């Protein structure tokens, strides 16, 4: 019986390639509770490690006595910095070129810093042991306010650096100073400001927050003394980097280290770096000869592993009276906490913050970033962000609103007037980037029409009059944002992590029956790589996505890659997939030509195979070609059908978007209601619209949280005030607004499939949009810039300050 002949559309649909809303393959296991996360792992004889942590933000550690703890039933060992010194691991290098204590060595620099590691038979016994460790501290004055860090009499935090006045990024000008980083032309910018008709200058702060994936950071380390091999399962967004760093630190040869990242319960940047828990678990396994598990709890996660943001940005814009920007000047005070453990490409101490000129055609700009130490947790990770792009977008999008207000211009009109025009791409920004492609006016106009921007402004004007007449106690704000991101790090000429260039990789192996496996250097934490990567391959080489398995996270089998963060998976690994697939396609074409007895040039690609030009009935499907590749290859051609690609991108990609928010705030209670939130994203070619929308929903919810209350706050003694979900704002389904999504498509000209990346866009664009809405609501009452986060209480305080409660 002959198989029914399928139409072209049916053949295409069967592949479930790029552009289709393919349902996720991951969900089969996740919806049945069959995910495989680190804490699910149980090995014979496995021990459990737990930390003794410092109650002080800044103190000298006089004495650590673990003798009572060692007598607690089930406790096997108490590891301190002294133990770690015997293997030269009391300190570890950070991604930012600093060093960080693994366990307190003489002093502590932030509350909940790791002081000792208790190893026991299970997590209960470990917790008992932690209680029994006695530590003697001598309290030191804590430095919490970043604006006081560089005062001459500020307390000395890093005694280890006291005499080192040059750091990883050049000279240090104070004992609490880490680096100064500058970009742009200072003289030209100063000149632009000297002759400016209108200028603004404001301190725009982006508060400290935390990525908070629902699964905390955790690992299991298992050292096999006989083979001299170390296996580490962990929550690693970048497993290969962890392997290389583990090898360099432990001196175990890299081929004898097996790093495995199983399913990861959300990352958002939290799981890029290396933490003391990983090192301690590894050392404990080497010492005890048993597997050791370390799982941080939520309080530890919020207070010790990697905060995000904490940028204080003095921002100046110069403009003409009719609303053309002529210059941008930004100084950032970057609070890095006790150690500089910022997760940026090594040459970029402030990440890609120099994207701060945003979507606007600034002729000149100058940027200076000063990194400083304080008695707070280390980190500075990119929370759903490509290395400080969120901070930059917030900075410029708030500043543009402030300038529009000063000029008396509508903020959308002001943006339209200053956008980089479509014909200016590729565009060279004043701070050194080459934007690949964009069509900002089209996106902005589409968004304004979709949200009925004019109508909203008219409604707001009426509502303001009603408010002034005392007829309502509600004020209405409209948030306008147009962001440009820079993602896909990155070209090896300027992007590396500790010297490892930031390429990424894909290896595709087509089996004889035409099914395939793809192995990747990236690592999904919920992004759905197993689903979307297969779609790229399906379109490229005509194998149905259901017949392609995507595997990530096992460093023994995956090609070397730099992992998933900074929206780099699609721009870099997605490109590697296309390139590997094209290598396969090229070989397949040779095989098909042999099978069809024609010259290669006489063949053309047709959805799922090759056909002879002009003779469409003469064709060979990829399935047939795969069989022949193994069993009847053309003479002289080696059998098999597989390829690997290491892709070093020529440039970053520059996704952009137009976001609008309409919000009402009750001035008597500070309670806000988000009426509408509309997000238009342009991420170039769209691989799976369902997943893109899901990414946008999730990122917007994170942005909503950050802008409206999610904060890591300290008191003046350095106590963390928001160290659990009791105080740290994670929105529930009740507070979270409904999201409206939309798109335009401006492909990246240098990317093999034109895709740009989208996962982080909503966090980047969402935060300024919410903040601009709150600021816009209050602006007619005389406010200029209200700092985030905008929770109910702070909104009430603003209203109180404006005398609205009299």
């Amino acid at each position: 019986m002959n198989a029914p002949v399928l139409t072209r559309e049916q053949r295409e649909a069967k592949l479930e390639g790029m552009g289709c809303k393919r349902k996720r393959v991951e969900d089969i296991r996740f919806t049945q509770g069959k995910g495989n996360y680190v804490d699910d792992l149980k090995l014979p004889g496995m021990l459990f490690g737990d930390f003794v942590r410092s109650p002080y933000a800044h103190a000298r550690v006089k004495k650590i006595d673990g003798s009572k703890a060692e007598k607690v039933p089930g406790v096997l060992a108490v590891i301190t910095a002294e133990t770690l010194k015997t293997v030269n691991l009391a300190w570890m290098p950070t991604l930012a070129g600093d060093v960080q204590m693994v366990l307190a060595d003489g002093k502590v620099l932030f509350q909940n810093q790791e002081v000792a590691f208790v190893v026991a038979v299970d997590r209960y016994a470990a917790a008992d042991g932690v209680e029994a460790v006695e530590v003697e501290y001598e309290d030191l004055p804590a430095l919490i306010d970043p604006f006081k860090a560089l005062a001459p009499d500020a307390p000395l935090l890093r005694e280890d650096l006291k005499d080192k006045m040059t750091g990883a990024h050049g000279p240090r000008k104070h004992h609490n100073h880490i680096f100064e980083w500058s970009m742009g032309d200072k003289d030209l910018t100063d000149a632009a400001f000297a002759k400016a008709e209108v200028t603004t200058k404001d301190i725009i702060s982006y508060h400290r927050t935390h990525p908070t994936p629902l699964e905390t950071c955790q690992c299991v380390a298992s050292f096999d003394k006989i083979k001299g091999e170390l296996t580490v399962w962990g929550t690693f967004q970048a497993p290969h980097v962890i392997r290389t760093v583990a090898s360099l630190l432990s001196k175990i040869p890299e081929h004898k280290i097996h790093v495995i990242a199983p399913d990861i319960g959300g990352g958002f940047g939290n799981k890029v770096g290396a933490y003391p828990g990983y090192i301690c678990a590894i050392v404990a396994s080497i010492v005890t000869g048993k597997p050791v598990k370390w799982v941080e709890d939520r309080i530890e996660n919020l207070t010790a592993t990697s905060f995000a943001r904490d940028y204080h940005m003095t921002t100046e814009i110069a403009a003409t009276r009719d609303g053309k920007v002529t210059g941008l000047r930004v100084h950032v005070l970057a609070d890095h906490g006790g150690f500089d453990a910022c997760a940026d490409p090594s040459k970029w101490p402030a990440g890609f913050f120099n994207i701060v000129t945003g979507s606007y055609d600034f002729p000149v700009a100058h940027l200076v970033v000063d990194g400083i130490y304080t008695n707070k947790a280390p980190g500075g990770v990119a929370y759903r962000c490509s290395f400080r792009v969120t901070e930059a977008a917030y900075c410029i999008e708030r500043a543009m609103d402030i300038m529009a207000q000063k000029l008396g211009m509508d903020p959308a009109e002001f943006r339209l007037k200053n956008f980089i025009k479509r014909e200016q791409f590729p565009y060279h920004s004043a701070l050194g980037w080459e934007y690949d492609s964009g069509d900002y006016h089209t996106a902005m106009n589409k968004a304004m029409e979709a949200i009925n921007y004019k109508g909203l402004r008219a409604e707001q004007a009426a509502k303001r009059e009603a408010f002034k007449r005392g007829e309502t106690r509600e004020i209405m704000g409209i948030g306008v944002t147009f962001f440009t991101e820079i993602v896909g790090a990155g070209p090896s000429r300027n992007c590396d992590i500790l010297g490892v260039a930031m390429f990424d990789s894909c290896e595709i192996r087509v089996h004889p029956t035409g099914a395939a496996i793809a192995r990747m250097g990236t690592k999904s934490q919920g992004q759905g790589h197993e689903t979307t990567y297969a779609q790229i391959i399906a379109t490229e080489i005509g194998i149905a996505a259901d017949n392609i398995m995507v595997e990530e996270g096992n460093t023994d089998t995956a090609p070397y890659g730099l992992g998933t963060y900074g929206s780099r998976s699609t721009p870099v690994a997605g490109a590697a997939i296309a390139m590997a697939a094209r290598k396969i396609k090229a070989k397949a074409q040779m095989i098909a030509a042999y099978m069809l007895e024609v010259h290669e040039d006489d063949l053309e690609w047709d959805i799922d195979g090759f056909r002879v030009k002009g003779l469409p009935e003469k064709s060979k499907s990829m399935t047939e070609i795969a069989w022949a590749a193994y069993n009847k290859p053309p003479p002289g051609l080696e059998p098999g059908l597989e390829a690997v690609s290491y892709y070093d991108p020529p440039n970053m990609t520059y996704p952009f978007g137009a976001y609008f928010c309409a919000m009402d705030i009750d001035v008597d209670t500070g309670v806000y209601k988000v009426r509408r939130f509309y997000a238009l994203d342009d991420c170039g070619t769209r691989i799976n619209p369902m997943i893109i929308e899901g990414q946008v929903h999730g990122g917007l919810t994170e942005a909503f949280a950050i802008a409206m209350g999610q904060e890591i706050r300290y008191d003046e003694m350095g106590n963390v005030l928001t160290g659990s979900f009791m105080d740290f704002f994670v929105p529930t389904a009740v507070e979270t607004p409904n999201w409206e999504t939309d798109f335009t498509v401006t492909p990246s000209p240098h990317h093999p499939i034109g895709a740009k990346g989208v996962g982080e866009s909503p966090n980047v664009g969402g935060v300024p949009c919410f903040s601009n809405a709150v600021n816009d609501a209050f602006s007619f009452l005389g406010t200029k810039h209200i700092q985030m986060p905008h929770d109910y209480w702070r909104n009430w305080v603003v209203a109180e300050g404006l005398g609205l409660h009299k």
Partner: protein
Amino acid sequence: MAKAHVKMTVNGKEVESLVEPRTLLIHYLREHLNLTGPHIGCDTTHCGACTIDMDGKSVKSCTVFTVQAEGASITTIEGMANPDGSLHALQEGFRIMHGLQCGFCTPGMIMRAHRLLQEIPNPSEDQIRFGIAGNLCRCTGYQNIVKAIQYAAAKLRGETFAEAAE
């Protein structure tokens, strides 16, 4: 530490163990019974990743001692699939409507939704949002979780959820 004897029904099977009296139910399920579907996402009973169904109520198993479950009937995500092995309407709904990403909150979220639909078979969007407010998700923004639950509610009532066709 003297151990306590516990006996309960988990996913239709009787189980019996000796546990330390302080053992939390979530650790008993995950580490003694190897039911690793329920997860641990916080220490303060806020996140709901550990939600199970116990004697007809949604329970956060991180805040219950195993000994408190003596004699109880418990369902975890592992007990949700239909007897023939096919996905339960909620499991299917979460997949069809893209109601999950990293999957970490999903088992708790589905167990909570399961009980919610017993309580209110045809819930409004507000009732769903309020009904799952004890379960946090960091990935999806809840919109598609709401739709997933609407999908399942419709299917369990023998109807079709309009948006599922997309």
